[in-house]
């Protein structure tokens, strides 16, 4: 998740508090990206791997996992952009 979506008004804080707040945000971002990693693996494994006759990933399963993960990352970026716009009160044009 983008840092700007977490806390916007750090500048108004005194220096000491700003540092502490910034450390809290860093920790949350690390935790968030590790959780994202875990949930992405779970999702793509669940959707792509259904055959347990061999212990190695087949070619088709590997391609499926790659597409799944890449689609997720692209979607996540797009959601982030739209989400930021809504946070700033920008209207999404209908059509």
């Amino acid at each position, binding site marked *: 998740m983008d840092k700007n979506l977490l806390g916007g008004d750090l500048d108004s804080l005194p220096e000491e508090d700003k540092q502490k707040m910034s450390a809290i945000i860093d920790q949350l971002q690390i935790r*968030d990206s590790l959780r994202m990693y875990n949930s992405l693996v779970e*999702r793509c494994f669940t959707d*792509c791997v259904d055959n347990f006759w061999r212990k190695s990933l087949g070619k088709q399963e590997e391609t499926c996992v790659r597409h799944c993960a890449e*689609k997720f990352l692209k*979607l996540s970026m797009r*959601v982030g952009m*739209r*989400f930021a716009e809504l946070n700033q009160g920008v209207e*999404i044009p209908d059509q």
Partner: protein
Amino acid sequence: MAANDNMPPAMDKEQIFGMAEKEMEYRVELFNKLTHTCFNKCIEKRYKESELNMGENSCIDRCVSKYWQVTNLIGQLLGSNRPPM
């Protein structure tokens, strides 16, 4: 609440940082649930390619917009008069 008056200021500050942390955790969780929900609603599970097609892209935009509206609607029902973020 009345007890707050004679609590040491250090304690107070601790709580303010605690509140800010919870608030940020909430935003992260909102964003993650939004992302996973719109993935479930908009992405075809066969994963034939790695690009998002046009249909998926417009679905995502509308999904985010409607999710936002549901967040506001339920926020009103819960009696909090503030926007979701």
